[in-house]
């Protein structure tokens, strides 16, 4: 449920009294309503569900799990000293 896809905001403008954005998803672009994520700027990523932006993607939070995984990997290597450390 809730198919929400991250897309890159390319431009923002007012249309018909509503804040709208051109959002890029992979190789296509589509219009999305940005009314509830007005702080999004071109270059930001937003999660879009049924043509509507739900929230802005926080880059730092997005990195967290990968930083954690890198730490886990480093720890694993420390615990097994006979393995080569890259």
């Amino acid at each position, binding site marked *: 449920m809730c198919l929400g*896809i991250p897309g890159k905001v390319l431009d923002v403008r007012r249309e018909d009294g509503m804040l709208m954005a051109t959002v890029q998803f992979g190789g296509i672009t589509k219009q999305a309503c940005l009314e509830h994520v007005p702080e999004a700027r071109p270059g930001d990523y937003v999660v879009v*569900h*049924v*043509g509507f932006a739900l*929230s802005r993607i926080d880059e730092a*939070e997005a990195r967290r*799990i990968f930083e954690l995984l890198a730490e886990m990997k480093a720890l694993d290597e420390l615990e097994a000293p006979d393995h080569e450390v890259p």
Partner: protein
Amino acid sequence: MKYLDEYRDGAAAKALVAAIEKTATRPWVVMEVCGGQTHTIVRYGLDQVLPKRVELVHGPGCPVCVTPLEMIDRAHAVAARPEVVFCSFGDMLRVPGSHGDLLGLRARGADVRVVYSPLDAVKLAEANPSRQVVFFAIGFETTAPANAMAVWMAQRKGLSNFSVLVSHVLVPPALTAILESEDNRVQAFLGPGHVCAVMGVSEYEPIAARHRVPIVISGFEPVDLLDGILRAVKQLEAGEAKVENAYARAVRAEGNPASRALVEQVFEVCDRAWRGVGTIPKSGYRLRDELRAFDAERRFEVEGVRAQESPLCISGEVLRGLKRPADCPAFGRQCTPETPLGATMVSSEGACAAYHAYGRHLDERAAERR
């Protein structure tokens, strides 16, 4: 695609599975709430790579499959009218009512159209002033802001030919219903990521506290779900029962206040019947009185349409994680995606449909692992 591809990375997934393997010392039962999460689990075979002692049960997270039978029948009654252009998300077109589905109705001449966004339906209404455009407003809280925006826009533009058939459902009451069920086996939840992007996480705190279950708000990609499962298992092993936000890149603790404000302007909470489960109090949205002019049920006088559920179907138990699709004697036989008997087979996100699509009824290998 950024923020998608990296969450499908095999190496990251493997590392998380290894961590889960190390962390889980006992059997645990975890339920993912959202149909989209179920879809990913089955599509990527996540349940195949997890240690057997971590059991995933699939939740009710499919607003499509829980849409009550009588609402489908009301949709048919409205769509059959010659002046109506009936717009819907694709998911709803193959959901069977008492007399077939909307696709079948289209084949018999009704003007039924798939739209990607409720805002497209408003545009259709503007472009076709002589037709009555009706939008089937289903979904969890995730879809409510877009549906609310459509109604708000129609009101602003003074459109007299636009209305919505509302069948919104809310997640927290569903979780409570599952937890309060006598034979509940669920010990932790993977919470609905996009619902929380709108609503925030606070509604889940009293549930976690009262029932002593960890609720880890998770995203929809394999790495998100495995991360969510790892955190849930860590909490379970430590005897904790907190709400944790594992989808912080998209979910703020307070959700999206602007969305919630609009939703509250347009909708109010009401009791709702869930197909296969029954009525859950305060578990749905309906249009506020001052916007009832946009209510298709009222405009087309279909409020009285009633329906009867099929007795064969065990959807209710599947939705609550008490039974698996394969436990149902009708699964893959009388009950298939083409001839669904109930809620969990009717949409591609229902547990039974997801299992069937990925061949679980034919999959000897998956059977061995169960």
